[in-house]
């Protein structure tokens, strides 16, 4: 365990050093929120991929395949579908407008401060849900690997994360994301051959899985409608989530974005596929886990040698950190730029940055309080992630994606779509059928409100994004 502790400590020191370095080179708000908007395709793609690979990938996906079988793996097709859509449909518009945040983009599209404020508030609500999943996963790792209580692990993890994100902003997040992607790829690249070696190669793996859980490759564990709607949720979760969209602003131009998106989805898809195979191995190697979410931490704890296990744990931690830091940044920008900044337009950039940093600390602490209070207890990590993607997709798909093409859409329609999508999604999660992911009713309600309410109001005079 000493080697693991040393590797972990070294990793955190490096991340802090990057945060501190970025604090020193951050000159203005543009540097802090979108890394100056000058990223190349490797750094831009890496930060997209690292943000995509969250606890949902490393802990949640493995947990679902461990529990429900391979059919869930087909969800991975949502990644290239979503990124292609991002590059082909949204990137041209985003590259033109170069705003600092998604709510600012929506304000420019609808010429409405209310749209900006409401979207910022919705982002904050959804982010709390997503960060909850990441914190739960961090608690599991601390519990299994270091033997400390999940609550202590969650508190320690949140403290480290908030400190470097608040310090360094997007520049810190981009550079640490790159480091974290490298660590993630290295971690699974080492774990896969070792897992296969234990079971006699890929054919041995299939034989073992077939013997121990013969329905693994069947389609029984998820009804088709559930799989399809989960796929929609993940696709929309990639297309319409602010932490991904804002990365389009961070890259310097459209050709760079297209290359960066290719880099991102090849990296994210490859990472997922390798992790899926590792998940199959865990079905055989650890047949009696209390929760599937423990499968990947157990790979690090009991499959890999100590030093390599520490590397994989650093990878899992990286995945969590690279996602949460991005979310925190979005939350901070929503608070400082889109809420505080619009209520106090005369505030200096320095004051707005300070509010953003404080906001990051506050928004980062809220999910921890919820988790420790028992909210969402017992839910598989991936299903918490799924709720976040459903909330984001339901709220923002219509105003962002349809909005860039349909010039007849009004601010009233956008407001109704965002609020209606979010509320429907929550209501379906609480009272609706478990066989249909909440994203579908949420999306249908959101689009219906968007179109219906827009048509009730007079045609807007100008379609902003085309004029920029």
């Amino acid at each position, binding site marked *: 365990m000493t080697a693991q502790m040393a590797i972990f400590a070294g990793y955190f020191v490096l991340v802090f050093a990057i945060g501190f370095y970025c604090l020193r080179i951050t000159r203005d708000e543009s540097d802090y929120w979108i890394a100056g908007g000058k990223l190349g395709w490797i750094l831009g793609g890496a930060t997209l991929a690292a943000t995509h690979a969250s606890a949902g990938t490393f802990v949640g996906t493995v947990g679902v395949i461990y529990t429900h079988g391979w059919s869930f793996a087909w969800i991975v*097709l949502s990644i290239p579908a979503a990124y292609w859509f991002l590059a082909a449909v949204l990137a041209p518009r985003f590259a033109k407008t170069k705003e600092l945040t998604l709510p600012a983009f929506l304000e420019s599209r609808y010429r409405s401060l209310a749209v900006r404020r409401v979207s910022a508030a919705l982002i904050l609500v959804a982010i709390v849900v997503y960060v909850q999943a990441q914190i739960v996963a961090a608690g599991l790792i601390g519990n*299994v690997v270091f033997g400390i209580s999940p609550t202590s692990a969650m508190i320690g993890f949140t403290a480290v994360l908030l400190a470097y994100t608040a310090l360094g902003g997007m520049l810190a997040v981009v550079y640490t994301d790159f480091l974290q992607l490298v660590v993630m790829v290295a971690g699974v690249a080492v774990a896969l051959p070792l897992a296969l070696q234990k079971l006699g190669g890929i054919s041995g793996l299939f034989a*073992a899985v077939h013997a*121990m859980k013969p329905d693994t*490759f069947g389609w029984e564990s998820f009804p088709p409608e559930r799989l399809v709607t989960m796929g929609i949720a993940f696709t929309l979760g990639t297309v319409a989530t602010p932490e991904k969209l804002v990365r389009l602003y961070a890259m310097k131009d459209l050709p760079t974005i297209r290359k960066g998106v*290719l880099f991102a989805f090849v990296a994210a898809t490859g990472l997922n*596929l390798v992790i899926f195979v590792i998940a199959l191995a865990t079905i*055989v190697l650890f047949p009696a886990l*209390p929760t599937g979410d423990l499968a990947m931490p157990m790979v690090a704890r009991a499959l890999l040698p100590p030093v390599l*296990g520490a590397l994989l744990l650093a990878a899992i931690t990286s995945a969590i950190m690279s996602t949460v830091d991005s979310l925190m940044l979005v939350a901070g920008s929503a608070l400082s730029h889109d809420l505080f900044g619009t209520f106090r337009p005369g505030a200096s950039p320095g004051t707005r940055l300070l509010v953003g940093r404080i906001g990051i600390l506050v928004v980062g602490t809220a999910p921890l309080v919820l988790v420790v209070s028992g909210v969402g207890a017992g839910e598989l990590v991936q299903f918490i992630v799924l709720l976040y993607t459903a909330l984001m997709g339901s709220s923002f798909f219509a105003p962002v994606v349809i909005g860039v093409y349909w010039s007849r859409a009004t601010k009233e329609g956008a407001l109704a779509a965002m609020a209606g999508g979010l509320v429907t999604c929550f209501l379906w999660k609480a009272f609706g059928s478990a066989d249909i992911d909440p994203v579908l009713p949420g999306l249908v309600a959101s689009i219906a409100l968007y179109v219906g309410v827009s048509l009730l109001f007079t045609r807007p005079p100008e379609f902003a994004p085309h004029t920029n």
Partner: protein
Amino acid sequence: LLLVLALLTARLEASGDGRVRLSYSLEIPEGVSSLGFSAFGASAIEDLSATASGESLVLSQERSGERLSGTLTLPKGARSPLGLEFQYRVHDAPIPVIIVDVEPGEARSGAFTARVELPAGTEEMVDFPSHGIRDDAGALAWELPVLPAFLSWGQPARPPASGVETPFAFWGLFAMNAAIVLLYVVWMRRAP
């Protein structure tokens, strides 16, 4: 039904033969009369028997490939905590761990411990689980928060299995993703 603790001890002879004892402490509700179990590595398990509080239990077992599964009949009036012990013979590593069909309980340090005495002069290399250590008496010892499927050290990988077809759902997924990447590259080169 809830797993509280599991302890495995084994002693291997120079011939590679060994005797395994696997003790479980279980919380069981009143009225439970039978208990299922399974293991990965059926071909290595011989002479399987089970006792509860010193009383021999009737067990049925079935082997399908490397999977062993079965049911044992608990003594009448069995109460919590139930001390259940499996005994079986193995030949060399890996040593399969028989998993009882109960709720695993919360993962915590030391929920599963194992100690395997090796013949003198064995040059072991801990293989799986990976964090095993050689104790003062020269035995290999493990402590884990959950049950592993088997214990192994120093032996070559299992020979590739035959007779199981690669599921289409597996390679099909990889092929579709590769095709999408190629299509994207073509699109990217032609996009204005």
